[in-house]
Every structure is written in C-alpha cells, then in structure tokens.
C-alpha cells in the first residue's frame, strides 16, 4: 500500500474510525496493533546485537453478503445493491482481508479488502458479527471503556538494570572461565478492534523474556535459565547467574548414559515445551475429520475420554494471575478453528482438559454450531495444573530414587500426527538424580515421545509456576506448568552435542 499522508502515524483509534467510515461493504472489522519493542542480545561475554523498534499493523476485514442477489457483484451504486435477506454472517457472506504496516493509506486498504470480498465465495466460517450489547452473553460493550487510551510503549530503559548487571556478570565470567550468552527482550502490544456493528475494544499486552546460557570455555558444559516476565521488575540477573553457576558446578561430574527409556523429571519449562504443541494440536475439526491424535477411531473425537490417571487440568484463562491476556478475540486471519467473523468474541476461562479428561477442542462459532458444541477460541495463555499439588521441583527431585532431571527441550518437531509423536533434543542440562540428589551431568539425548503419553505416564506433579518454553516461548511465553515425573521416557539416541 502506498501512503497518502506525510509518512507520520495517526492515533490508532483514528485509523480504526477512518477505515470503518470508508467501508462500503455490508460489514467491516478493523484491527490496529501498535507494537513497541526493545532487546539486547549477548554472547561470548559481550553484547552482540540490540534493537528498538516501533511497528504498527493494520488489518481490514470486509464482509459482503453473497453475490447473486445483487446483480452478480456489479459495482456498488448509491443506496446499495440488492442483497440477500438476513444479516452478515447469517446469510451467505464472503470475506476479504487486507493488511499493511506503518502509515497506511486507509482508503486503499479498505478498497483492497472489498475487492477481494467481491470475488470470494461465501465463507465457511460465517457467523453473525458480534454486537457490543448482544443477546446470550455475547455482549462485549463493557470492555470498551479504555478504547480512547493511547498505545503503551516500552523503552530500552526497561532493560537498563539487566544490561548493567550483565556488564558485571561478564567480568566474573571471564575470571571464572565461563562464557555467557543470552537475550533480554521487552515489548508491549496495544491492540484496537473496531467493527461496523459498534464493537470497540482495546487490549494492552506487555511481554518479556530473559534467557541466560552459561558455557564452560571448553564448551563441554552448558546450562540455561529462562523466564517470562511482563515488566522485568521481577528479573534479577544475580539470581539467574547463581542458578547457572550452580548447575555448571553439577556438571563437573559427568556420567555417560546410553539411549533407552528412563524415568525423567521435566521441570516446568520442559513441561511447557511439550504442552504448547499439544494444545496447538487441539483442533476440533481436525479431530472430527480423523486427522489428529484427538480423533476417536469411531469417527468422533476423544472429548470425554481420559488422557491421564492423574486429574490434570489444562486451561486458558484471561484472568489467570500473572499471566493475564486478551479477554476477547482479535484476529486478522481465519484458520481451521479461528474466524475473522468472531472478532470481539469474549474469551473466558476455557478448560481443555479437566479431571484428566479431554474437555473440549478449539472451534470457531460456525464450526461449533455445525458440530453442536460450544465455540472455544484460542486463549493467550496455557496452564497445566494438578489440583492439590503443593510440592516444588526440588520436592520432586527429593522424592526420586533414580531419574534424569532435564532442563529444557529443543528442536521439537512432529514425527507422527496420528500419535502426536514429537522428536527433539534435551539441551543445556541433563542431570542424574539418585536417592533425592543430583549426582552428575549426563550426555544429551534425542527423544521420541508424545505429550499425550507424557500425561498418561506422569506419576507425580509439583505445583504449577510460571514457565518459559525455550522452544515455543517466542510465540507463547505465558504458561504456568508443573514439574512432572514421567516413567519410561523414550531417549531414542545419544546426542554428543553440549
């Protein structure tokens, strides 16, 4: 898109209103997201790259009652063409989407989305657009109170304390024969959603990540510590340094173990590495069509079936303390179980697994209506919890006769979608625990294991704490997970990587 303006950004609310005013279609949704980010990267005891950026993404979705009732999609005339009876999403409706970043020519973007809608077939995911004060609890009006507030920004200053701490940590690392590497990033996304039905919603999402890797200078020992954070106020570099130094110490005694099935202790971060891809695979339509590990052989889904002998709960909840996320859906693209028609849909506590049973799968409203189930939009956080669990990771370790304590998993890819078999590597810390104590560091392994099997074979869980999936943290850093003890974890081969 070219720009008609002076190359400067207007307030996001102005962009929303101008796009809605410019719309000539039967319905329109506009999503403006302001993104402000700062980061510092370091390796080999020096900062390497850094950045500060300001981004804006604008998405216009045009909804058009299907052609055929209006002269086969001819040019719009004053007063509007003849249309099918019924509202957008009730009658057959086609969709066009166009998006652009930066200083957007709103008129051009709206026309582009309309032109796409004009030639599109009626959408499979059509559902009536949400009203600010709709019936049956779909009303979203109350959340609009802050719509006029400006976008919130981060600044590199959020990272000043970390950068200052790093300068000192690098000095100590050089003296002690360690190499530090890692990443600190903080961002704020401010999303503004407006629709032609009067929805006006705003959500501000801060998100940050701190990761620290320490390696011995010979490269033979390597450890990782990571955390998700919203503010960096809770990030203490000295504590990160203490953790990695302690674990480098554990690795001074090295134990070589062969491939095989082991009892493992997954710390919360590694549990997140496995639960995030499992939750991604929880698509209702995929399961109904037999294309998923959540399909039942008889043609239905596994909803209602037990996945674990332990009464685990897997949930998303916008009000989860410390992991708060958007309480409404805002999306610029439809997918298998997410729909642009559902923009503004309230998101509430959603239990995916309850009492160890599969409780629900993801559906957009149209898909849910076809399948006779409740719609379930993706939620911006993921919590696995064993109700009543009170112990910590250290308690799980203390209860252990012999097991491998992992740190995090890496390069996780789906090998077989039928069983949700995943492969990947252990990384930056595998420790042998004997009689409740870490007795040394073990070589890395390639694993082949399904998260469904992990839930089925889990024998103990700690209480859940905020966790950072190293593999998926950039896309989902809002997780709380327990440490898990899992029997017979399949370490398929040894990896010589350190």
């Amino acid at each position, binding site marked *: 898109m070219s720009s008609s303006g002076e190359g400067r950004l207007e307030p996001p609310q102005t962009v929303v209103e101008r796009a809605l005013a410019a719309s000539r279609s039967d319905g329109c949704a506009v999503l403006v997201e302001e993104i402000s980010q700062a980061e510092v990267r370091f390796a080999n005891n020096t900062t390497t790259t850094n*950045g500060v950026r300001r981004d804006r993404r604008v998405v216009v979705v045009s909804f058009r009652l299907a052609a055929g009732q209006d002269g086969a999609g001819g040019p719009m005339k004053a007063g509007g063409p003849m249309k099918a009876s019924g509202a957008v999403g009730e009658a057959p409706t086609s969709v066009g989407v166009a998006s652009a970043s930066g200083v957007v020519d709103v008129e051009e973007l709206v026309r582009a989305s309309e032109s796409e809608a004009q030639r599109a077939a009626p959408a499979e995911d059509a559902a009536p657009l949400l009203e600010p004060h709709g019936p049956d609890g779909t009303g979203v009006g109350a959340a609009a109170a802050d719509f006029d507030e400006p976008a919130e920004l981060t600044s590199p200053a959020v990272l000043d304390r970390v950068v200052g701490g790093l300068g000192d940590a690098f000095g100590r690392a050089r003296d002690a024969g360690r*190499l530090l590497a890692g990443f600190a990033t903080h961002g704020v996304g401010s999303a503004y959603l407006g629709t032609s039905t009067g929805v006006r919603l705003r959500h501000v999402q801060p998100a940050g990540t701190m990761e620290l890797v320490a390696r011995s200078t010979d490269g033979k020992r390597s450890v990782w510590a990571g955390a998700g954070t919203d503010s960096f106020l809770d990030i203490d570099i000295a504590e990160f340094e203490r953790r990695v130094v302690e674990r480098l110490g554990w690795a001074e005694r090295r134990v070589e173990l062969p491939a095989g099935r082991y009892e493992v202790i997954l710390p919360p971060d590694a549990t997140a590495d496995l639960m995030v891809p499992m939750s991604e695979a929880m698509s209702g339509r995929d399961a109904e069509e037999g294309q998923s590990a959540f399909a039942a052989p008889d043609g239905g889904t596994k909803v209602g079936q037990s996945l674990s002998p332990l009464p685990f709960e897997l949930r998303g909840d916008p009000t989860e303390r410390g992991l708060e996320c958007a309480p409404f859906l805002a999306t610029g693209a439809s997918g298998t179980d997410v729909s642009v028609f559902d923009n503004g849909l309230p998101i509430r506590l959603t239990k995916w697994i309850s009492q160890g049973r599969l409780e629900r799968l993801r559906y957009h409203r149209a898909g849910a209506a076809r399948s006779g189930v409740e719609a379930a939009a993706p939620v911006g956080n993921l919590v696995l919890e064993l109700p009543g669990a009170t112990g910590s990771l250290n308690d799980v370790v203390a209860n252990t006769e012999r097991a491998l304590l992992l740190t995090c998993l890496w390069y996780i890819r789906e090998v077989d979608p039928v069983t949700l078999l995943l492969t990947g590597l252990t990384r930056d810390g595998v420790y042998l625990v004997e009689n409740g104590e870490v007795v040394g560091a073990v070589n890395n392994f390639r694993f082949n294991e399904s998260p469904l099997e992990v839930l089925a074979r889990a024998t103990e869980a700690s209480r859940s704490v905020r966790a950072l999936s190293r593999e998926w943290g950039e896309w989902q850093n809002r997780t709380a997970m327990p440490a898990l003890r899992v029997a*017979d974890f*399949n370490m398929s081969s040894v990896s010589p990587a350190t």
Partner: protein
Amino acid sequence: MSSPHERGEFGGLPVADVRSAALERAQQLGCRHAEVRIEHIRSQFVSLRDGRVETTVDDTEIGVGLRVVHDGSIGFAAGVEVHPHAAAHLAEEAVGLARATAGALGRPVELAAEPPHGHDYWVSPYEVDPGEVAQADKVALLEDWSGRLLASPSVDHVAARVLAVVEDKIYADLAGTVTEQRRVRIHPVVEAIGVDRSTGTFESMRTLAPPVGRGWEYAMGEGWDWDAELAQVPDLLAEKMAAPSVEAGTYDLVIDPSNLWLTIHESVGHATELDRALGYEAAYAGTSFATFDQLGRLKYGSEVMHVTGDRTAPHGLATVGYDDEGVEAQSFDIVRDGVLVGYQLDRRMAADNGFARSNGCAFADSPLHVPIQRMANVSLAPAPAEGPTTDELCSAAGRGIYVMGDKSWSIDMQRHNFQFTGQRFYRIEGGRLAGQLKDAAYQAQTTEFWGSLEAVGGTSTYVLGGAFNCGKGQPGQVAPVSHGCPSALFRGIRILNARSEAGP
C-alpha cells in the same frame, strides 16, 4: 533496469530523503559506520481446505531500519514511519542504544571492508508479479487442484496453499553504496490426506514442488509440471496407506534431492555459519561441531562430497545482488573433497577472524530487524554430467531404502544428531524399487552420515530445493534459502519405526 521505487512500490514516499536523513544524522552523531534499509514486502497467502477457502492474507510490510557503529558499539533502531524526521530520530535512538550497551561490550565492533558499489539495481528473474494476480485467481487455481485430488476415492481431505512474496529493498551506507533490489518468490503446496477409520490412523502425501525464486508463472507450470505431479498423488497416497510398516534397522539409503536438500540445510548449512561455530548463537540456534579451529582439517564427509555456498544461483531463494551489509553476491567453497574449507560470513565475523572480506551472508527478514549472518544457497555438487542416475544409485544399493520428499526434521544444537522423515520411503530389493514403506524415519550423526556417502548422482538428478522459513536469531527471523543437490547413496544408515517409537 528501473528501480523499485521508480516503479512506484514506495508510493511516492520520499525514500531518497529518508535514507539521506538517517545517514546524515548518524554521521553528525559521530558514527563510523551506518547502513539504512527501507523495505516494502508484499506477502500473499491463500489456503484451502477440501477445496474451500480457509485463510487469506494479503499483507504489505513497510519500514525503515538503521544500524550504526558508534565508538565501537553497535545500535539498531527501526520504525514504520518513512519520513526524514523519523529517520533522523532513528539515528538518535540507535546511537542511544549503542551508548547504553557499551558498558557490556567485550571488544569494539569491527566490520570487514567492502568496496563501495555506487548506485546499483538488481531484480530476481520472474515473469508475473504474484502481487498483481488477484487472490480470487489464486483461489481458483487451488480449487482446481484440490478438486482433482478430491475426485479420487483414496483421498479424504485436501489442503492446498500458496505463499508468494515480493520483497523490495533500498539499502544505503555511509561508504556510498546504494542498492535497490527486488526479490520474488513463491511456494504452492498441495497435500492429500487419507483416513483409515478402521485403524484410527491417517496418512498424507504432499507435492514435492520446491519453493523457488520465480513469479506466478511457476504456479502456471513454468519450471514444474503440476499436472503430472498432481495426477500421481492419489495413487501414491493409496499405496502409502496400504504399505507395510518399516522394520527398524540399518539400511543403505538412496536419498532423492526432494529430501536431501533439508538434510544438507540442517547438517551442513547451519553447521558452517561462522557465528554459530564461534558461539554467537549459543543461547538460541546453537553452536556447531565444526569449530573454527578445524577449518581446512575437519573430515566432514567422503571424498565425493563437495559443497558450495552461493548467492548467485538462478531462482535460488537466498540469491541477491547485494546482502544487507552492502556486500556483493558471491560463490564460495564450504566442503571440498570431504574437507571443511569455508564458512558463511558477515562483515563482523569476517573482521573478527582474519578474513579480508565478507562472503555476503548478512540478511534481515524485515526492515524492523537487524541483519544477522544468514544462510547462502548451500548446495551439494553433482557428479559430472555422465554421473549415475537415481536408478543406477538404487541398483548400486542392492537392498535398501529410497527416500523422497521432506517432512519432519530435527537436529541438535551442535548439528551432530539428526532425524528426518519423508513423504515416501520405498524398499529397494535387488537394485529396484519394490513398493512403499510407512512409519520410517532416518537418524544419524552428521560426519558419520556424510562419511557414508558413497556416490552422488549426475547433473540429470540435480534439483534446487529449499524453504521459505529457516529460523535463526533473537528476536526470531525467518529467511528463504535454496539447496541444490543430486540424488545420493549412503551406506548403513539407521532407520526407525515411528509407530513403535511412540509406544512404551
């Protein structure tokens, strides 16, 4: 050749003023080096499920990124306002960040010298700009393709998608280089799924057509025979569904270029990035077993292994005129006669490690991201023209397995231990293909695997494969990259049965 902004991609925005404003302010602030990129990236994506549209994306990203070296410290700032005042402000922000991080700087940043290239233009070869093809026309093509597959009783579901990108980039630096480049790339994919309700399982079969640096003409049949490939998919899927499950064990493998490109990418491409080998990706992508001290000595593979890096291959996804540090595109050896002889470099890695010049491997996936060392087209050389055909390699294998098409992939953080699956695994009996096998994965250690390379196919077997989505760096960046290779014969590789890996 006309420049992108002369063709109007930048919509009359004052791009010349913007780059001057950014560089001039950086110079005023005392920067020894500064480089600015103004980019316009059009990405279009259409996906159909069972012949009905599921997702459409028509996105334009525009922005300005400025990297500076100030008092030996580096700073990067970026924004979406293409305006001289905003660009000058970026210089202030970048210098501010360079100052703020100087206290944690181990040693001053140096960049290897690159001669200035004046004001130059470069456009990748394409015929039809995919951005000029209406989304509805893309949908119509995918509907047609989906319909052909859905007509077969062996196909229960079809996923069809196309991603096309047109990337316009203006680069300028304080040394006086100004380049304007356009790259066009496209990847259509069709996958058929068969569901067996009696066993509660399903299988898929995907087209092997690689992503390429071409325009919409590729989807129309220029450079790939879609009709022929689509016609085969239902029968290939039916055969796979009825195929016996592989018996785990050790086999000789003949690997088709449609699978081998990804193994090269993971086990050679990433392992020979100098930033990784030196530990600069230790916290994320990982390091490399191919450490810098082994340059010129490491026995990477057998003597028939020759690997080059290049940014010049026609239709290659990593092919450019100049990289994102203003370095001219080059071609260079990485493995020669089985020995490690070169690394992929950017200007900082080159200067730090005694190379006179970068070989042009700096790339940023967005105007808002800092350039980092990214992969060239890393390709395995075929045997000379008279070299063996794929059939001849199978014949030499005697008893083994022939692998086609990439699917699942995973490799460790030092690029030793990898595991790959594929679209199709065929049993080789008596030197001939004897039907498909299912549930197979191959697993190996990099140098053992390449050491077991007995023969490479001739140029007639050579195909340029690749991917749009190679990930590296924090914040994560994705880069498109191609890998050319012939079919090849490997002796004694471990094959796993994925289904039995899943059960205790």
